[in-house]
């Protein structure tokens, strides 16, 4: 068992409202990712679950039992700190052994567990070193080992892969997902990297300024963003947003363009709207069911694809294209739109105006 439920967490630091009513329900055995930009309150949320900080309001239930007042030790959780927090005076071996020592395991048990963890994370060579003699990536793996060496109720991980180079990060992503699956344990995993979130998560909670914006599977969050901000935050290149209004059977852009009005929206006539278009739902190579005209603004070759920036009025559309695409800035272009996959948001509140069952 290992469910983690946080309800209505509130925490302020002076004038900063770090957590403004955060509610998360982490099912047993799931890989639950908390995704948000820097300063969103991700670390604060984890620390609240771990019982390291006093909350202004809210409760934490572990395995269905109220643990709000419990000490960190009593909660039986393991955490990877964003800053690693490796004990500087202790060797890597002693760092990894620490959770077992605290729980009075025998030294043969400890030796076996440390050996297993260190071979899993490829740090056997480092066991006799001290944290000061490690690179950032090595420290991060030691911190992971210290958390994974025990079988707690749940693992809390605060951006455990951010300091690794890209290759190692991708490797460790796969490795962590594998570890998660083989342990069947609950992971609460914090990151500001949406690729990490989308590729690893069973469920994602998107956090901004201490408020949960949306909770759902990676697909749900990507395909049906609850609001304009989530749409903009998830996905790369970021979604293009065009200001427009609904008029009869048409959408009229602030820049003068018109598109057919989608049937799946609850938008009303005259309402200020934002049309959200993802780069892969746009094309400069004739595809889709409607079109916008603009001029070529720039090309971003990314190897496997090229992102074409097209200026429509004063707004920029990011369009995904084949890597072979060419053009000169200022050139007129017709961008075809897959309107069935587009999104509409209220320009004022930012909330999605797509019908639920679409």
């Amino acid at each position: 068992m290992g469910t983690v439920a946080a309800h209505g967490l509130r925490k302020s630091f002076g004038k900063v409202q770090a957590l403004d009513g955060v509610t998360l329900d982490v099912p047993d055995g799931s890989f639950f990712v908390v995704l948000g930009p820097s300063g969103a309150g991700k670390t604060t949320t984890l620390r609240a679950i771990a019982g390291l900080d006093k909350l202004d309001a809210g409760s934490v239930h572990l395995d269905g039992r109220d643990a709000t007042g419990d000490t960190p030790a009593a909660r039986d959780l393991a955490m990877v700190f964003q800053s690693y927090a490796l004990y500087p005076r202790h060797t890597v071996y002693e760092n990894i052994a620490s959770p077992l020592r605290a729980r009075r395991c025998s030294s043969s048990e400890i030796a076996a567990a440390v050996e297993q963890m260190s071979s899993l994370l490829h740090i056997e060579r480092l066991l006799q070193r001290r944290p000061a003699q490690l690179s950032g990536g090595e420290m991060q793996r030691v911190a992971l080992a210290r958390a994974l060496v025990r079988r707690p109720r749940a693992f809390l991980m605060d951006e455990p892969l951010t300091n690794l180079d890209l290759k190692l990060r991708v490797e460790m992503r796969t490795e962590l997902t594998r570890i998660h699956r083989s342990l069947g344990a609950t992971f609460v995993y914090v990151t500001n990297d949406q690729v990490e979130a989308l590729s690893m998560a069973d469920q994602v909670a998107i956090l901004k300024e201490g408020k949960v914006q949306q909770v759902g599977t990676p697909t749900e969050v990507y395909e049906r963003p609850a609001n304009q901000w989530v749409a903009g935050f998830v996905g790369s290149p970021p979604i293009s947003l065009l200001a427009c209004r609904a008029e009869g059977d048409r959408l009229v852009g602030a820049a003068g363009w018109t598109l057919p009005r989608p049937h799946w929206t609850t938008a009303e006539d005259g309402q200020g709207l934002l049309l959200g278009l993802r780069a892969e739902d746009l094309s400069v190579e004739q595809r889709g069911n409607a079109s916008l005209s603009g001029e070529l603004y720039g090309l971003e070759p990314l190897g496997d694809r090229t992102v074409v920036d097209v200026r429509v009025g004063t707004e920029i559309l990011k369009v995904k294209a084949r890597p072979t695409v060419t053009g000169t800035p200022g050139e007129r272009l017709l961008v075809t739109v897959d309107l069935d996959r587009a999104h509409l948001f209220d320009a004022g509140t930012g909330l999605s105006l797509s019908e639920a069952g679409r």
Partner: protein
Amino acid sequence: MAVSVDEAVSTGPARDHTPPARRLGGRGRSVLEVTLLTVLAVVMLFPVLWMIETSIKENRDVYAIPAKLFDFKVTLAHYKDVFVDPDGGRSALSVSFLNSVVVAGVSTVLATVLGVPAAWAYSRFAVKAKKDQLFFILSTRFMPPVVVVIPIFLMYRQVGLIDNKLGLILIYAAFNVPFTIWMMKGFVDEVPAEYEDAAMLDGYTRLQAFRRFTLPLLMPGIAATAVFALIFSWNEFVFATFLTSSDSVRTAPPAIAGLIGGTTTDWGLVAAASVVFALPVLVFAYLVRKHLIAGVTLGAVRR
């Protein structure tokens, strides 16, 4: 006695002036610089030199006019007089040295044991009006001891702590606790709180986390702070003079001061006693000098 107390302080600055000059290189030093340094060295070091010289001169040479700088007879008789009574027993001075060791040692241990956990608490926990409390604690150090010596004398008389080593220990600890809290709060602030957080998640209690993971990192800071507290207690003169009177309780500073005056002053004895008094602090500071430096640059030690 004024010589002995100043001495412990004066050698420091005099020595500190040499390294920067050396760093500039021989040629870089201006005549003015050399002159100033020489004058400073003479002014600072001469009393110390004179004290040491007097302590090993025969009495005839001590009182000789003109003073003999070099060609005097060396004797260790004054040092013997410091420790051994003319009748053969222990001298009153040696008892006062022992008292000084006990009073300074115990009061320093007391101040450290009370001050370090307090500093940790101030650093780690949200305490109401923390800044005001810390300022209040510091403010007890603003006033010179002389200001409070009379009220303390009266209070001590009521509770029977006059002419009592415990009385001195308590007052020195009381003066050193605020100092310890302030020094140590800085050192604790330097140690990331996340070591304790991580330890608590490992399964330790908060106190265990402090003892096992933070305290070892604080040792250089504690050593530095304790040395300063020890020097304060060792050198303290005002309270010792007012609050003690009998030979069996007196600490060394008033005991040495007591040698001066009367019909004749045995300057050789005064000088020898002063040297003996100054030595322990110098030796101790020298032994823990690594910690003192590490204490000042704790950041470099940490990671």
